[in-house]
């Protein structure tokens, strides 16, 4: 049992949670503050992830030199998506973004580009620079988290990742308190009203799309660095939907939403996975095999996520800790 809990705790603060948290901070800027229905956050994360891995593998760049590439590439992707869709109704943005994310995933999966993208296997061994910069106090040690041991590499990526989470959260918090952020929220509440006040709604939406996209790009970058592998499998449409589940869980349009959401989400995923594995492994308490067995229990977590998302949106749209009056989406 303590094993399960410590795995859950590690899940809550681990690299995957950080990556999804960053993607969710970006999505929160789009969906929570501006009301943009971006269903292609996986695409932004993919751009960020490959912007790190490709220059390092193909042109032997230092991994630190790819940071501007992440920013530029995600911004370009946001501009490409925004120009055709931001003047249209919101469902068009949803369909175009989900399609664009899928286009990118198919493009990096194709065997024709295997020399550049590694096709479905993706790119490995681009993380030497991270490995080499592990600070002395961590090097060669493993950090215990109750019964779970965290390796020095993981710990270092987690430190970098949480630094980014804090940086972007504070940034988004202060931006949303600024006049600029208030215009964004007025666009979310009533686009026509914002327009009638003389605001250039298109430009505001575009900057919001770029800002959230860049943060999502860093999410993808942390994900591939943490996994030491950039492959299309990590950036399926599922990625976007999980990110939505995270911000709905933590509270849409709140700065702490993505952080709280990602931690609870990955804690629950890891705990339920561990429990189900324990209940289907053939010893101790067992679930009946017609319910699930050791070959199919791992799908159950996604059923749980889907059902949880449905119940949350219907019964607690403000998130688990939120106040009903602060509900931020679907106000119209």
């Amino acid at each position: 049992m303590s094993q399960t809990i410590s795995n859950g705790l590690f899940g809550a603060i681990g690299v995957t949670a950080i990556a999804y948290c960053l993607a969710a901070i970006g999505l929160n800027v789009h969906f929570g503050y501006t009301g943009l229905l971006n269903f292609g956050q996986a695409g932004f994360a993919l751009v960020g992830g490959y912007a790190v891995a490709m220059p390092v593998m193909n042109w032997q760049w230092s991994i630190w030199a790819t940071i501007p590439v992440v920013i530029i590439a995600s911004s370009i992707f946001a501009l490409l998506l925004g120009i055709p869709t931001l003047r249209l109704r919101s469902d068009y943005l949803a369909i175009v973004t989900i399609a664009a994310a899928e286009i990118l995933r198919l493009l990096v999966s194709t065997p024709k580009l295997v020399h550049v993208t590694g096709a479905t296997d993706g790119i490995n061994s681009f993380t030497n620079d991270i490995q080499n910069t592990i600070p002395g106090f961590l090097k060669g040690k493993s950090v215990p988290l109750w019964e779970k041991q965290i390796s020095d590499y993981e710990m270092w990526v987690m430190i970098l990742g949480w630094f980014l989470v804090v940086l972007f959260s504070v940034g988004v918090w202060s931006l949303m308190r600024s006049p600029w952020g208030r215009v964004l929220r007025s666009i979310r509440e009533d686009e026509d009203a914002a327009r009638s006040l003389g605001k250039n709604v298109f430009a505001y939406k575009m900057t919001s799309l770029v800002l959230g996209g860049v943060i999502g790009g860093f999410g993808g970058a942390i994900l591939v660095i943490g996994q030491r592998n950039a492959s299309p499998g990590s950036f399926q449409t599922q990625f976007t939907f999980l990110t939505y589940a995270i911000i709905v869980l933590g509270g849409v349009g709140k700065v702490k939403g993505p952080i709280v959401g990602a931690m609870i989400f990955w804690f629950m995923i890891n705990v339920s996975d561990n429990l189900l594995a324990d209940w289907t492994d053939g010893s101790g308490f067992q679930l009946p095999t017609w319910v699930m067995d050791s070959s199919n229990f791992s799908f159950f977590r996604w059923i749980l996520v889907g059902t949880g998302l449905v119940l949350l949106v219907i019964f607690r749209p403000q998130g688990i800790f939120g106040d009903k009056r602060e509900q931020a989406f679907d106000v119209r």
Partner: protein
Amino acid sequence: MASTTFRKVSRIGLAAFAFIALFSGTAHADEETIQVRVQHTPEGGKKEQVEGVEITITDPSGSVVAEGVTDEKGVARLAVPSDGSFTVTIDPASLPEGLGVGEGQESRTVTVTAGLGGNANFNLGEATPKAASKLSLLPKTIFNGIRFGLVIAIMSVGLSLIYATTGLSNFAHGETVTIGAVMTGVASGWFALSGAKGGWGGFMQLSAAMIIGVGCATAFSGALELAVWRPMRRRGIGLTSMMIVSIGIAMSVRFIIQMYYGSQPRSYAQFGSQQNINFGPIGVTPRDLTTGIVALLALGAVGYLLIKTRTGKAIRAVSDNPDLASTTGINTERVILTVWLLGGALAGLGGVIFGLDEQVSWNMGTKILLLMFAAITLGGLGRPFGALVGSLAVGLFVQLWAWLFSSYTDLKTMGALLAMILVLLFRPQGILGKKERVG
């Protein structure tokens, strides 16, 4: 003359259903390896290994299971999902200059034994000038495109009608498609246990199974309306929330199917390989012909319903303006339920046909959902006949892409999605959309 052709068609149809079901029971789920070796012996020279040759492995239904490139030893080891027989194809375009494979030699069937894997060796010769022109494949490509478009159309008409009457982009529509196909697959398994497999028996079994599958899809769609969407509308929950709820439902249902149906794609128990009937340059299997006609009939019925009947008029009235429709005495809620049931039935039918074209898998609906959205966006969101036009455009585009860029067929879906985005740039209301609906 016409009646002879018809008799010939039906006779071949009979014979073809009698073929053995190749995929009725997949015993192994273990991965096996096929080793492909490509070499070339110049005249009077030593054997040379050929590097960089692109290889594709397909299963008997024609879907790609593995792809790879030979290494400097001229060898590629590719994993296939199970034992059985597979077709290994090398891409002639990827061969070094001056080398080529003989006519019909570029692909061969390999039998994979469990635990031992399989082998395929290709010996290249000098290149011969290209014989068959691409152009001769065009009629068949266009036929396939229209057929695929019709299949997408019967699935997406429901999606479009639901959008038109309720404003909801229903992401769970893909799962309705999957349910139709999976339940047909399960039922075809029950029926196959008793009675003959091939011939009319097989056809009848599959038809009966199809009724069960389509029934399940209809019930699923209707139940969602009654249990989820109608209460949500009553509570005044907005469309964005409903869209996210549909994503959650899609996810749950998809993985429930994966949990109990399994991850392995399967064909219907009555499925067998068939011979083509030739209509001029176009060769069609009786199966494809039958399903194409079924799709056409279903679409015709929907068109008749929408234009000629009272129900259809009510549906169109509700999609134009729900409030106005209810003030004229139309029972809006009943119309919406009808649309969900109709959309579910059509999606289920589309799933059954799609399961015959490819295989029945737990995520088949999700895979085609984006093409459905692309189709209804292309045709103009919320316009049922736009969905038909958009579907045909998407179907044709996918097949023409595969024909035009024959070495980039894995990107054909991407091509259709890209086309959708480009159309939105220049004609955001879609092909048939009204201008004022947008923005």
